[in-house]
């Protein structure tokens, strides 16, 4: 008789076997008696086979080559932490641990590009900040070149931008961007 499979989580002998079909592919996971509970399998509200697969498939991949000991410079999160927690450390992990996350997204989702809702307010805030920075730079440049007439104009513009940003009124100062 073939040797029973090992637990996908702790390598003990597996007695519980899960099968799910995702995108026409059969995915299987095996667990010992103790692990499904820890993994949330017994909690119908919290269990997703996709999350477990993401972890176990990652386990199966050559961690050294894929992750090469990189940690997220923002929060110190390491690929091994994902193995333990099944969650990331901070939003910057998506950039800093891209080689770990990108293949997972391809497996999990219908596409790899966001085509949904955009946070309009946030996008406008980012644009406004960039405009303020540009105006500040232009002002410094004008002062350095003793172009005082330009500097006075730029100072007024900068003031208007800052006051629009502080009041959250993007419509007046950022109208062109919104309608673009």
């Amino acid at each position, binding site marked *: 008789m073939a040797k029973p499979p090992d637990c996908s989580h702790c390598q003990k002998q597996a007695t519980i076997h899960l099968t*799910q*079909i*995702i*995108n*026409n592919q059969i995915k299987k996971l095996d667990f010992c008696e103790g692990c499904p509970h820890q993994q949330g*399998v*017994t*909690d*119908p*509200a*919290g*269990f*997703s*086979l*996709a*999350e477990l697969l*993401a972890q176990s498939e990652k386990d199966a991949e050559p961690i050294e080559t894929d992750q090469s000991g990189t940690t997220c410079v923002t*929060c110190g*999160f390491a690929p091994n*932490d994902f193995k333990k*927690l*099944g*969650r*990331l*450390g*901070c*939003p910057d992990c*998506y*950039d800093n641990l891209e080689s770990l*996350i990108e293949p*997972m*997204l391809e497996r*999990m*989702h*219908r*596409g*790899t*590009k*966001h*085509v*949904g*809702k955009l*946070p*309009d*307010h*946030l996008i406008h*805030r980012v644009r406004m900040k960039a405009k303020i920075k540009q105006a500040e730079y232009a002002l410094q440049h004008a002062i350095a070149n003793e172009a005082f007439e330009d500097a006075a104009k730029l100072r007024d513009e900068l003031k208007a931008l800052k006051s629009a940003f502080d009041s*959250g009124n993007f419509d007046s100062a950022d109208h062109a961007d919104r309608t673009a």
Partner: protein
Amino acid sequence: MPRTFYAKMQIQPLIDGKSELTHAAEPPQEVVISSRVRLARNLQGHPFPGWAKAAQRRAVLTECEEAIAGLGIMQKGSVLEIEKLSDLEKQVLVERHLISRELSAHGAGAGVIVSSDQVAAIMINEEDHLRIQVLRSGYHFDDIWQVIDEIDTALEDKIDYAFSEEIGYLTACPTNVGTGLRASVMMHLPGLVLSSQMEKVVRAVNQLGMVVRGLFGEGSDASGSLFQISNQQTLGESEIEIIRRLGNVIDTIKEQEVNARLRLIENEPQKLADKIGRAYGILQHGHVLSSSEAMNFLSLIRLAVDLGILPVEQRAQVDRLFLESQPGHIQFAARENIDSEGRDIARARMLREETRIMPPLNFDKLAFS
């Protein structure tokens, strides 16, 4: 647990108030019990709750609470910090789908804000910083999306969300990245369960990238023939597309359920009538009822309503009793600490009183040969 503890219950207003799941404005529908959408959102520049230190989680809680307090829908809502709730209160909130089991296990900085009609609930420091949920009785995704979109946009005016133009809203688990949207429907599928077709349905639904879960039972046990069907993928499709695709799956399952019921009526009318009759009798006269038994009997009463054996008005009562038969709700109503056996007795007593004046069963619609 000291008796006086019950006097201090913070969730009492939620129990006393008219909620969407117990007193919906519109009459409940056949098959689809409720629908909900949740959005996962996070704050820029903060570690995700599972990686954050207690002080960082508390800072996120404060920032989110301030932003949420300004929302029109949350005026007169309940603001609850998980650390300050008893285990029983947390269980009641889980049973009412206002918080998740995961949030109930969290300590520092975990909280929930619930609108007074319990349609909207925002969890703070669950898996993500924000989990916004809107829930309605019946099938109402258009309304739900409109409400949750407005809440999200209003919050986004105050909070800098973690967002990438490439992969959308950034979430603690990559399974939620993109739209951060999970749409789900709670369906009552006794026809498919009685005719042993659920396994086939689960397989077909999984192939379409959707997930089927038992809702109230422990583990995969779907007592009461209640199932939650939701999307699994969140990236590469717009919110509207995800909801539309789920809607198509729901319509198909509904059709299958109706067909399964028709076949049961045609092929085994007596067996079906017997099951309904026994459920009716035990609910009216039983003295010890476990949660799972109660759910299964209530499910048969709901089926009886759908088949015209009981008047349509009874459906709302059944939906309320699905909730009020849960262990936490029975314990809460008892107002003293009772063990599991005591709860089974209290549950049977409550259900006897509730069903005492239920109209008689009218089997005319089932044509016995």
